[in-house]
């Protein structure tokens, strides 16, 4: 009698499944070829490194959003959280290098705290996360404007900005490696490890069928809350990098939540939870960033940009969706 122990599937077959990373890899490859044709030196290590570095914040946000989405929820507050973090950092640091590290620590705590509140309100008060995080979005934006009287104050120290703006020079083979990229690599590795751990598998199970998870001893509320906390932490790290990269502004995080959700879905993760990989989500974000660069290189300029962006996203998702669906 055939049993499960019979054979393991080949890794190739694993990835073609719905929720796998193959479609997004294919799209990424196509875009890379297109960029390479137009701007061959983009693929040289230095410029590639700097591209990856500047994309790091968005990729981190996508990873954070992934945890929340795969557990069956939404986090619409990350964009405003990034803005709030950057503004808070500027005001607290007030250009004083000595305050850099305490403030970095504070930002991480702040991010985790916002995630915790999102998580607890969603799981314990049973407010749909769409509403919870939309409310949090309003609260954060309002509060940070209120606190800073409508215009960011103070300034970020050079030390703080280093994470997002500077690079480790003279690395063999690669040349400059942006610190942001190093941070990204570390966080991405942690995220992958986490998703392979018991917690990660449980998280996906919660998104798939919370009742079963509950009846199998999972503390569903805790698991989901942790996902929100992870998202908040990711937003904090992203804010540190983004603030470093571009400085203080109220626009720092604007629209990032939609970017992150789009990236996650593009990466094959199902909204509603239970399917998809964190690698896919991060690749989705990278693909989106590459798409923007591609448009810069091809001179898709001005107002037409959003049309091209919309068309490519639709096409990509439609092709991968119709190809992976079996009836």
């Amino acid at each position: 009698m055939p049993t499960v122990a019979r054979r393991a599937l080949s890794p190739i077959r694993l990835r073609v499944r719905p929720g796998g990373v193959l479609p997004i890899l294919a799209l990424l490859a196509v875009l890379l070829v297109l960029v390479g044709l137009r701007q061959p030196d983009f693929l040289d290590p230095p410029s590639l490194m700097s591209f990856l570095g500047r994309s790091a914040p968005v990729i981190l946000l996508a990873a954070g959003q992934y945890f929340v989405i795969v557990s069956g929820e939404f986090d619409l507050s990350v964009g405003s959280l990034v803005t709030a973090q950057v503004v808070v950092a500027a005001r607290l640091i007030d250009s004083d290098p000595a305050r850099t590290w305490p403030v970095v620590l504070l930002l991480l705590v702040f991010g985790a705290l916002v995630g915790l509140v999102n998580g607890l309100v969603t799981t314990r008060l049973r407010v749909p996360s769409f509403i919870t995080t939309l409310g949090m979005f309003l609260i954060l934006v309002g509060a940070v404007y209120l606190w800073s009287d409508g215009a960011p104050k103070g300034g970020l120290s050079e030390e703080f900005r280093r994470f997002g703006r500077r690079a480790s020079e003279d690395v063999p083979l690669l040349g400059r490696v942006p610190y942001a990229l190093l941070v990204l690599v570390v966080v991405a590795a942690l995220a992958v490890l986490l998703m392979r751990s018991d917690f990660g598998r449980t998280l996906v199970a919660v998104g798939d069928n919370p009742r079963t998870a509950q009846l199998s001893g999972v503390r569903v509320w805790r698991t989901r809350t942790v996902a929100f906390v992870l998202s908040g932490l990711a937003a904090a790290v992203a804010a540190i990098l983004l603030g470093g990269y571009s400085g203080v502004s109220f626009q720092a995080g604007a629209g990032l939540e939609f970017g992150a959700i789009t990236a996650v879905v593009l990466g094959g993760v199902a909204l509603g939870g239970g399917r998809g990989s964190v690698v896919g989500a991060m690749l989705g974000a990278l693909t989106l960033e590459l798409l923007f660069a591609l448009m810069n290189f091809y001179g898709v300029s001005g107002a037409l940009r959003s049309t091209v962006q919309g068309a490519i996203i639709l096409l990509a998702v439609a092709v991968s969706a119709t190809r992976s669906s079996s009836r």
Partner: protein
Amino acid sequence: TDEPGGGPAGGSTSAAGSGTGEQSKFFVQADYDAELALLDATPTGPADKPWEQMLNPTMVDTSKFRKAGPHKLCFSNAALNNPWRQVGFKTMQAEVAAQGSRISEFVHVDAEGKDQKQIADINDLLGKGCDALIVSPNTTATLTPAVEAACKAGLPVVVFDRGVSTKCPVTFVNPIGGYGFGHVGAEFVSQRMKPGGKVLALRILPGVDVLETRWSAAKVAFDKAKVDVVGVEFTDGDPAKTKKIVDDYLQRYGTIDGVWMDAGAVAVAAVEAFQDAGKPVPPINGEDQLDFLKVWKDKGLTAIAPTYPTYQWRTPVIAALRILDGQQVANPWKLPQPTITQDNLDRYLDPGMPPLHYAMCGCTDLPGYPQRWK
């Protein structure tokens, strides 16, 4: 490509508003000429109070609005969603405070950038017994009916910043305008770079009238100077996006010889992008925000800062009170629109103020300075 500017793909693929191709439909030659003429006009009024100055004024009679004070002033505000409006509104509040005894109540409603909310707001204010109504419209055309309704209600209406397409308000207060702004910046940038050099135009958003006029005037200047506008990109006012765009353009063209912006919000980010790429910062224009002025001075940039002064937020209050006194006021009330150049940079750069403060606030004499603006 067959466009006058000869820009590569950048211009050819996009429609109105980009490249230096066809002029946008927002371009009105007569207004352009008038504004450029105003740049050189000498204002009337106290020289140390530009917010009370007028350019080529035509005075109108307001005696029918005369009323005994103190007055209740009502203000329908388009939005408070950017530092410019923040600084402006604080300046206005300070002006109200300065006029203390003459104003019994100052009602402020914020439309949060929504046309339809502002229409409702104005309607709402009409029921509140205001003595005068100040409106900063969110959009020119769409707010016109609401403003007309307010005029019909019989109270004096003062419009500032953006206009409305009706003559019914007692006066319309604003500085010279977008053509002047765009022209000053573009002329500076194109004159300081090599002929035929590459200019990158960084814009905030499409479809905002003030910003559109700035760009259309710049376009005229660039076309005249025969420089190559390699790209017209929208940044959404997001510094990160700005840096990415500049980065990619640098990679694509090797060098960029000039940067023009329709607003100063992301000027510092653009400068940083050049620094981070290890390239010299080309001639660039910003606005009178202090962060830009600071970088300008610290790094010795070749730069200029045309302004859209925030002191114009003081004038509507002054105008409203004059109207209620029955004094004549200018209509339109054109305010001077100074430019910050290398020569007068130090006068405006106040390191004690926050980075996003606008130097041209004309607020140093107002109660609560500088604390109110910090």
